[in-house]
């Protein structure tokens, strides 16, 4: 078909009563197929993205384990960098807070522990870390409050009872 004939056909299509050209193109089977393929590609991309994230998480944990000492700068930086990306991951957050304790940065550790408790309020390690950080900072009343709150829901946690007694002894109330 030459150019002139093609132009005639296009003119005829425009003149003909019925759906406009845009609608015809949208209803074309090839275009529909493209849409389906695009949809499946998006779904596949999502699956790959999720798997990648999972594998990256495992890799970071392995790398952190390979670093050996929890006090090393590389270990600390690794956790700090990952935490910006995986903010909801309580496990990473706890490791980071413990690394802060290992560096004797108790105030920062208390802040991180409080952030962990926003995510997971009844986390045993998070609560214990917060209570211990308060104790180390000399915030005994706050430490007792954390212990009391946890003992109110898990009455048999001796770690909290002992820390509570320590705080009371230091305050001179027992």
């Amino acid at each position: 078909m030459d150019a002139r004939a093609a132009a005639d056909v296009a003119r005829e299509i425009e003149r003909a009563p019925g759906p406009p050209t845009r609608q015809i193109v949208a209803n074309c089977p090839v275009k529909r197929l493209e849409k389906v393929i695009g949809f499946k590609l998006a779904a596949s991309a999502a699956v790959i993205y999720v798997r990648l994230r999972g594998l990256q998480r495992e890799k970071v944990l392995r790398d952190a384990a390979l670093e050996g000492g929890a006090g090393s700068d590389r270990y600390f930086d690794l956790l700090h960098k990952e935490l910006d990306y995986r903010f909801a991951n309580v496990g990473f957050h706890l490791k980071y807070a413990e690394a802060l304790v290992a560096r004797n940065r108790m105030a920062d550790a208390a802040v991180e522990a409080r952030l962990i408790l926003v995510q997971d309020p009844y986390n045993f390690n998070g609560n214990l870390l917060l209570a211990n950080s308060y104790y180390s900072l000399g915030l005994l009343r706050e430490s007792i409050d954390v212990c009391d709150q946890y003992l109110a829901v898990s009455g048999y946690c001796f770690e909290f009872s002992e820390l509570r007694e320590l705080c009371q002894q230091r305050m001179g109330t027992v």
Partner: protein
Amino acid sequence: MKIEAKNLRPLPSVSLFNRNGLNFVGSANTIQLLDTALVVEGLLKTLGLIVVDLLFRQALSEWTTVTIPYSRIVSCNYKRNNLKIIFVFLLTYFPFLLVAALPVLTDGRITESNLGIFLGLLLVLTIPACIAFAVLFFVMRLGPRVVLIFRRADGRQMQVSFRITPKSLRAKFLERLESNRKTATQALGHNSRLAEEGNHR
């Protein structure tokens, strides 16, 4: 006791529109029954989009941990969901039944000929009705499940649903959970008695 990912399938809580459900997704979730609490670890859906959810659920989720002390658990039961399954089946079957009944409804009276058409149509339409029900069954995940209801720190009731296979493991899990809950309740009672005695002194 730890329920590994291969034995655990998270299920949507009650319905797709339920706001009180913690919806874990994917096949890498685990549940641990510790001495202090029940810990669920996995991909928690953080963003809910009605249709997009079906395909991109895991991409909209974050890996996290939820700790539930035994004293905060309101109930944990195994539910077969038979009534719900029957209700959804009837709901799916109704439009097909209506289409099959059209000849009878339009004639106004039941004759031998339209009753034959009705029964024939009903037989033919049963297949698409069953297919539609099967699709709904798997999309909405209507099957039997363990439903765990607990109170959050702010007092709001939340729900987690999951399926544990095999049956023996599920029975062991429920038994262990119940015994831990009893121990937790006793310990709390003991603690409150001690606190009262301390106050009296």
